[in-house]
């Protein structure tokens, strides 16, 4: 049962670290942001998983359902998704400016230009 009951969390762990690897190991700035998105998505998965209850339905009442999954993690993740897209948008804005100023979006090339 452990495998079925914990699989979501394992995927969370793997995705989290996959995203993190892209952030630390990839020098391309856009790739870093993609990694960041993935990294944050993993956290969403973790939260939503803990809100699920066996045999429950979405916490929208009516139609006779009585057992609901917890609405709280869902609310938190709604917020987190919006935070994530906000960060991504700002990051991409920065990338565009960096491309303008440096002509590159590769971290090492930018560092090379900063230290003449």
């Amino acid at each position, binding site marked *: 049962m452990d495998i079925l009951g914990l699989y979501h969390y394992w995927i969370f762990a793997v995705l*989290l670290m996959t995203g*993190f690897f892209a*952030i630390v190991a990839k020098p391309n*700035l856009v790739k*870093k942001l993609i990694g*960041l998105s993935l*990294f*944050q998505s993993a*956290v969403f998965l*973790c*939260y939503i998983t*803990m809100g699920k209850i066996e045999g429950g339905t979405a916490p929208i009442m009516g139609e006779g359902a009585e057992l609901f999954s917890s609405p*709280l*993690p869902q609310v*938190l993740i709604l*917020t*987190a998704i919006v*935070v994530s897209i*906000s*960060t991504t948008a*700002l*990051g991409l804005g*920065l*990338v565009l*400016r*960096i491309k303008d*100023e*440096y002509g590159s979006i590769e971290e090492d090339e*930018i*560092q090379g230009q*900063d230290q003449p």
Partner: protein
Amino acid sequence: MRSKGRISHDGKIRFARGEALLAPHLPHLPHLPMLQVLVPLLMAPFVLLLHPRGLAWAAATAASLMAFAIAVVLALTVVGDAPLTYQVGRWPAPYGIELRVDDFSALLLLVITGASSVTLLGGWQSLARALPSARQPYYFSAWLLALTGFVGIAVSADAFNIFVFMEVSSLASYVLIAGGPDRRALSAVFKYLIMGTVGATFYLVGIGLVYMMTGTLNLADMAVRISDVADTRPVLLAAGFITVGLALKAAIFPLHIWLPNAYAYAPHIATAFLAACATKVALYVLLRFDFVVLQHSASEHAVQFAGYLMPLAVLGILVGSGVAIFERDLKRLLAFSSVAQIGYMLLGASLVTIAGLNAAILHMFNHALAKGGLFLVVAAFCTVAASSQLEQIGGIARKMPWTFAAFVVCGLSLIGVPGTAGFLSKWYLVTAALDYGALGIALVGVILVSSLMAVVYIWRVVESACFAGEFGDDADSDSETAAVPPLLFIAVWIVALANLYFGLASALPIELAASAANLLMGNAP
């Protein structure tokens, strides 16, 4: 007016109706914790729409000053008294979001709003020069949003709410830094953005795990409910994630690498603001979480906290100061000094004693005074100097002796010379370390050696400002008033005098810090 016939809620819900009786003369007093956040928050969108030159700045400054006034009232209300709580939407605590202003947050609020007010007040010309006028409303709006974020973190008693406001403050800080004229500001911000977001997400993972084990997000409730599960793996892991995440945000060595460039290339005034409060807010959350939630339940927590963070603190102190000695750019020099000073705060906290926490918290206040002042002076220098390189400011003391005098005052405070605010925190820190036993004596050595290093790097600046060339021939001190914007000059001296004032009459911060330390260690004041 509230209608009497309002149907009362479920019997389980109890409202704190006593609030209204608190102060009949100040009808908004019970709302103050909320207003503290709302004033900058609601002003930010307005500022965005104010396009005429200078108006955005004026509005932002007004909002900031108002927030400062609220913070002062809050501090005076809370000091030596029970914390103020506020239930947003009148939903009771673990269900709704609770705001809570205790001594620790009151102290931090003073720092944040004070720093924002003084820097904004003095920063008009400096910022107007750095930013094209079409972009100023955005910038000042972002400034208020950063203020909102910091303040929101400080008053919140809810773990997730802290995350939300952390993101507000982070995003706004990125904008503040990216306003720097040098293109390196952009690459610095990008690094900050990546590391900051990773930090915030780590924090989010951490509170997620704690939430999973306790089912609550309210810090106080969490502290109660965690006692059963405190030593389980997820909670341990959560402590790790939260600590690392916040350490990233707080620029704790060795996770400080975003900080020097971000501070160096931001507009000078923004640097002054952020240097005074940004990292401290993250440290505040770290202390809150570690001490309020974990300390009393997790059996090994004190040992782990000390074991992992103390070496980092010591290394941070030594490395930060050491690098600062060899830095040639004044802003980078001060930024590395910040890394060391964060080490002091962390060192105090990592003793896990009341005295140590007391020192750490007091140092938050005093370091903000010193470092904020120093960066403001840098801003003043840069109104005449081409850049903040040490060579460029050579001999500037002859051109602007009074501004330079303020630099010396703040610098002495940073070193910890008696009579200045910085001395008090050093005093407490050394006292706390001496109380710590044999290891403490070694720590005292570290603190003192680092103070000496501070002497060296501050004095390098002083010497080049006094004795080097550049402004050598122009010894006309009357031109100072012409060169430095009067508002900036006033702001610089407000901070410098505050450094002296709080060096001698610092009852308020000391009392706040003392009871904050007691609160964190779980003793009611």
